[in-house]
C-alpha cells in the first residue's frame, strides 16, 4: 500500500532492502501492469508513477461514487433502484468498459480504478470506523460491478481468482445427483451445476448443512458463487486495510501526500449530504441574533425542538449546543451574531461563566480557534440528517439528535402538535414512517404538508429544477427550502443557490460537497 510513493524512491535513496515486504514491492516496480479483467480484487498495489494531481483527482472521483452509494439506502432506494441510480454515476466518474467494448480507454480506465482504490485505501485505513465503512462500500461497489459484468467475462474473472474451485464434472453429477440436490436444496428446473471447494472456504454453508461434503470437499451450488466472491473480496480488503493501518505511521512521506490523504478521509468522515455553503440565506437577507426567533418557523423539527428547549430552560447541554450552533452557522448567522445569540439566550448565566465555559466552543465551531486543521476547515460542518440519524442516541432528557428517531412515537406526536402540526392524516403517516424507521421520510412528509401550496406552484410553473425538490437530507436544506418557498414571490428564481452535489469548490479548502 505504500508502493505508490515508496517504491520508486527506494532506488533513489539506495536503501538497503532488507524487509521482505519492501523487496516484494521493489520487484513489482518492473512488472508492467496488465488488467485482463474489468473487475479487480486489488491484491497488488500499483507501482507505476503518476502525477500528484491524478493521485488526488482519481481518488476524489472514486470517493464521489462511494458517497453516492452510501447515500442510496439512506434515500430509501431499493437494491434495484440503487442499481439504476448508480449506473449513470459510475458511468460519469468511474467508467469501466468491458473487454468486448474494444474501447481504447480500457487500460486507462482500469488503471484509474486500480490506483484510486489504493489511494483511498491509504486514506481510510486510519480508524476502525473508516476502515469498516470503506470496506463495506467497496464490497457493495464490487458487487454492483460484478452484476453488470458480461456473463462470460465474469466467468473468466472468477476463474482467474486463486480460489481453487473446480466445476463438478458430468460423471460426478450423475453419480451424486440425488445427494447433491438434497444437500444444496435444488428444486425442479433450477440449474444443475455445482463446484467443488475445500470445505474450510465455506464454513457458513457447512454450518447450515447447505452443501454436500465428501472427504473434506464441499460441493456448492453455483448460486452461492457470487456471494462467495464478494465475501472473499471483503475479507481480503479488510485484512488489507488492517495491514495498511499498521504501516500508516511508518509511511515514508514527504508532505505531499498526507494533506491529500487527510483531506480525503476528512470529507468521508462528515459526508455533508446536501450541505453547501449556499444553503445559507446570506445572499437574500442577513440573519441576526434577533431574527433567529422569527426564522425558527422554517427550522426542521430537530432544530425547532432545540430552539424551544433553549427558550424554555435558557440553557442547552453541550451536544445540543453544538448541533444548534452548527446549524445556525449553516443558515448564515455570523460568528459575532451567533455569540450574541447564545449570550442573550443563556440569560441566567453570568458573563464570566459564559466566557470561560461556552464562548470557546462557539468560536471553535466556527473555526475561529483551534488547531490549524480546524481553522482552515472553518470549523465543523453543520450536521446532516445522516449524521444525526447514525450517531449514538442522546441520553434521556437531552433534546439533540433527530426527534423522529429519539422520541417515542407518542411523545413525537405531541411535540409535532405543539409546533403546530395537527393534521390527523399527516400525523398518522408520520407514525407509520417512524414505525418503519424511515425517519427522514417522516420529516419530509411534514415538510411537504407544510408547503404543499408553494410546492405545487413551483412544480406547475417549473420555477425550480426538479433536483431542488428532491428528498431533504440536511436540516439546512430544509431551512433554506422552507424559507425560499415561503418567500417565493420575493426571491428571484435565478438566485437559487441550492446546487447539486459536488459542483462547487469554495475557497482555498477544497472540501468535497456530497
Amino acid at each position: 500500500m505504500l508502493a505508490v510513493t515508496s517504491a520508486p524512491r527506494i532506488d533513489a535513496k539506495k536503501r538497503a532492502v532488507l524487509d521482505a515486504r519492501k523487496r516484494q514491492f521493489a520487484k513489482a516496480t518492473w512488472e508492467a501492469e496488465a488488467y485482463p479483467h474489468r473487475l479487480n480484487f486489488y491484491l497488488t498495489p500499483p507501482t507505476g508513477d503518476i502525477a500528484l494531481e491524478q493521485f488526488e483527482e482519481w481518488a476524489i472521483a472514486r470517493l464521489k461514487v462511494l458517497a453516492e452509494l452510501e447515500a442510496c439506502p439512506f434515500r430509501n432506494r431499493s437494491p434495484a433502484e440503487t442499481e439504476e441510480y448508480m449506473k449513470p454515476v459510475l458511468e460519469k466518474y468511474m467508467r469501466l468498459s468491458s473487454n468486448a467494448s474494444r474501447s481504447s480507454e480500457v487500460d486507462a480506465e482500469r488503471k484509474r480504478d486500480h490506483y484510486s482504490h489504493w489511494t483511498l485505501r491509504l486514506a481510510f485505513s486510519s480508524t476502525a470506523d473508516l476502515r469498516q465503512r470503506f470496506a463495506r462500500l467497496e464490497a457493495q461497489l464490487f458487487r454492483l460491478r460484478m452484476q453488470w459484468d458480461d456473463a462470460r467475462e465474469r466467468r473468466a474473472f472468477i476463474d482467474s481468482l486463486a480460489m481453487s474451485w473446480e466445476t463438478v464434472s458430468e460423471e460426478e453429477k450423475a453419480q451424486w445427483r440425488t445427494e447433491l440436490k438434497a444437500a444444496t436444496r435444488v428444486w425442479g428446473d433450477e440449474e444443475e451445476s455445482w463446484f467443488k471447494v475445500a470445505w474450510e472456504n465455506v464454513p457458513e454453508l457447512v454450518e447450515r448443512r447447505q452443501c454436500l461434503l465428501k472427504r473434506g470437499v464441499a460441493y456448492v451450488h453455483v448460486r452461492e458463487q457470487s456471494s462467495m466472491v464478494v465475501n472473499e473480496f471483503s475479507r481480503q480488503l479488510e485484512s488489507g486495510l488492517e495491514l495498511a493501518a499498521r504501516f500508516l505511521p511508518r509511511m515514508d512521506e514527504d508532505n505531499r501526500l498526507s494533506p491529500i490523504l487527510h483531506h480525503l478521509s476528512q470529507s468521508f468522515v462528515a459526508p455533508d449530504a446536501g450541505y453547501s455553503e449556499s444553503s445559507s440565506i446570506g445572499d437574500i437577507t442577513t440573519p441576526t441574533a434577533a431574527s433567529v426567533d422569527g426564522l425558527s418557523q422554517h427550522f426542521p423539527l430537530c432544530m425547532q425542538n432545540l430552539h424551544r428547549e433553549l427558550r424554555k430552560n435558557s440553557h442547552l447541554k453541550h451536544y445540543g449546543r453544538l448541533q444548534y450552533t452548527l446549524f445556525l452557522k449553516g443558515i448564515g448567522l455570523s460568528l459575532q451574531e451567533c455569540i450574541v445569540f447564545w449570550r442573550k439566550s443563556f440569560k441566567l448565566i453570568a458573563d464570566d461563566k459564559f466566557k470561560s465555559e461556552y464562548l470557546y466552543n462557539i468560536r471553535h465551531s466556527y473555526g475561529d480557534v483551534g488547531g490549524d486543521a480546524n481553522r482552515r476547515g472553518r470549523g465543523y460542518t453543520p450536521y446532516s440528517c445522516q449524521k444525526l440519524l447514525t450517531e449514538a442516541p442522546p441520553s434521556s432528557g437531552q433534546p439533540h439528535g433527530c426527534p423522529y428517531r429519539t422520541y417515542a412515537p407518542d411523545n413525537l406526536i405531541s411535540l409535532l402538535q405543539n409546533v403546530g402540526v395537527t393534521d390527523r392524516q399527516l400525523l398518522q403517516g408520520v407514525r407509520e414512517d417512524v414505525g418503519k424507521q424511515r425517519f427522514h421520510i417522516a420529516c419530509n412528509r411534514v415538510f411537504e404538508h407544510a408547503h404543499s401550496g408553494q410546492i405545487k406552484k413551483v412544480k406547475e410553473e417549473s420555477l425550480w429544477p426538479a433536483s431542488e425538490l428532491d428528498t431533504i437530507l440536511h436540516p439546512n436544506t430544509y431551512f433554506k427550502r422552507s424559507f425560499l418557498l415561503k418567500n417565493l414571490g420575493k426571491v428571484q428564481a435565478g438566485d437559487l443557490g441550492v446546487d447539486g452535489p459536488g459542483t462547487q469548490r469554495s475557497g482555498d479548502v477544497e472540501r468535497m460537497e456530497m
Partner: protein
Amino acid sequence: MPHAVSSSPEQDASANVEDSYMTDAPAAPAEEAEKASNTTDSQPLPTNGATSTLESMFDDDDDDDDDEFSSSAPTKPDEGSQDQPQAQPTSKPKYSSPDILRQFYQRLFPFRWLFQWLNHSATPQPDFQNREFAFVLPGGAYIRYQSFMTADLFRKQCIQMTPERFEVGPQYSVNPRDRKQLRKASAFKPIMKELVFDIDMTDYDPIRTCCSGAAICNKCWQFIIMAVKVVDAALREDFGFQHILWVYSGRRGAHAWISDKRAREMDDTKRRALANYLVLTMGNEQGKRAGIKRPLHPHLDRSLKILNPYFQDTVLADQDPWHSPERAEKLLQLLPDKGLTTALQKKWDSTPDRSSNQKWADIDTAAEAGNLTTLSAKQLVDAKQDIRLEYTYPRLDAEVSKKLNHLLKSPFVVHPGTGRVCVPIDTRTLEDFDPLTVPTVTDLLREIDEWDQNHGSMSDEERAKVQDWQKTSLKGYVEYFRGYVAGLLKEESKGSKRGREEEAQGGAESMEF
C-alpha cells in the same frame, strides 16, 4: 524431585528407575522400531496377537464393578463374555491417593506415545513444547498453563505432583509459561489443537430409562456406540479426517480427538461450523421441532441408516421409552396430528400395558385406519423419522468442539471417581467395548505384582525387557494407541518432507524410536 517426596523404600526403588530411563522406553530400540513399522503398515491395527490378549484379559478383570456403578442394571449372562462379579469385598480404594497415582505415572502411563501423539514427531517441537497442560491436583487445585520441553520433564512433573487428572489444551503462539512476559497480551493466543468431541451420557437423560445422571450400564452405553458410529462416519466420509482417536472418558462418555493437520489448524469459526453441522437441534419442551428440512441432508440420511437398527433394538426394546402412560404422553406430543393422537390415546388407555414397540407400530395402524386429520401420509413418515432421530441421533456437548482453547481430559489418565483408566476405544471392535470392564488403576497395579509372582523363574535379563504396562490389561490399549500414533507420525513426516529445514535431522531421529 521424587527423592524428596518419597518416603518408603519401595518408592525409592522406583524413583531410581525413573531417574535412569522412562519405564516405557524400549529396551531394544531396533526391535522396537521394527515393531512400530509393522503396526504402521496395518495401522491403526494392533497386531492380531494384541487383540486376542485384549479379549482374554476381559475374562477375569472385572471384580469390582458392582459397587462402582450402583444403579446399573445387572449384566445379563448372555450379553457379555465376562464372568459374574466375584464377591470380593475390597475396601473401596481411593483411586486418587498420591501413592497410587505416583506408581501409576511411574510404571504405567504411556508418556512416550502421549508425547508423540501431541507432538506429531519424535523430536520435541512447538506442537508439544508450547502446549498447555492443566493439572487437577488431589486437593482440588487446578493449575493451568503448564508446559514442558520434553516428554521426560512432563513425566517428572506428573510423578512429583501426582495430579488426579490432567487436561490437554492447545499449542499457543508462545510458551504458555512465558505468557506474562509478553508486552502485548494479545500476542498470546492459541494456534493449534486437535479437534475434539465430547459425548456425555447425561445429555441422554431425557430419553434413557435405565439409568440417570452419572450412572451407566450396558444398555445405555449403546447410545455412546451409536453416537461414535455416526460421528466417526461423518468425520471420515464428509470431512475426510483419518486420524480419529476415540477415548473412553472414564465414567459415562467418550471423547474424540482428531489429529489430522487440517483439523488441528481450524480456527473457531470452522470448529463452530463443523460442530453445528453435526449437531441436530432437538425438539424443546412443547415438542415443537426446529424443522429438519426435507429432503434429508445426505449426512442425516446416512446417519439414519446407521441408526435405524438401533432404534428397533436399543431404543424400543431395551429402553422401552414410552411404556408408562406419562412417558407415552411424550410420544403423542411429538406427533403433530390431533386425530391421530386422540385415537392412539384411546387405544392405549384401554390396553395400558403395551410396550414401546407395540405403540410404535400402533401409530401406523391408527394412521391406516384413517385417523389422520391434518397430516398427509408423507408428513407422518417425516414425523416418525424426526422421532427416530430424536431418540437415536448423537447428543454432542458441542461447546467443547467450538473453541480452539478448550481443554479436554487427556487419554490414559485415571478417572478420579471410578478409578478407571481413560483408555482408547478401537472403533473396529466398537461393539465389544464394555466400559464396565475397563481396568481400574488398582487392578493394574495388582496385575503387575501378580505377573511378577507368576514369572519368578524368569531371568533378570529377560524380566528387564518386559515393561510394567506389558504385564497388565493395559497392554492392549497401549499397543493400540502406539499403533495409532505411529500411523499419525508416518503421515506427518510425509507432510513435513517439503518445507522443514530440520527434515534430515528429524528423519534420522525418527528411526530410533
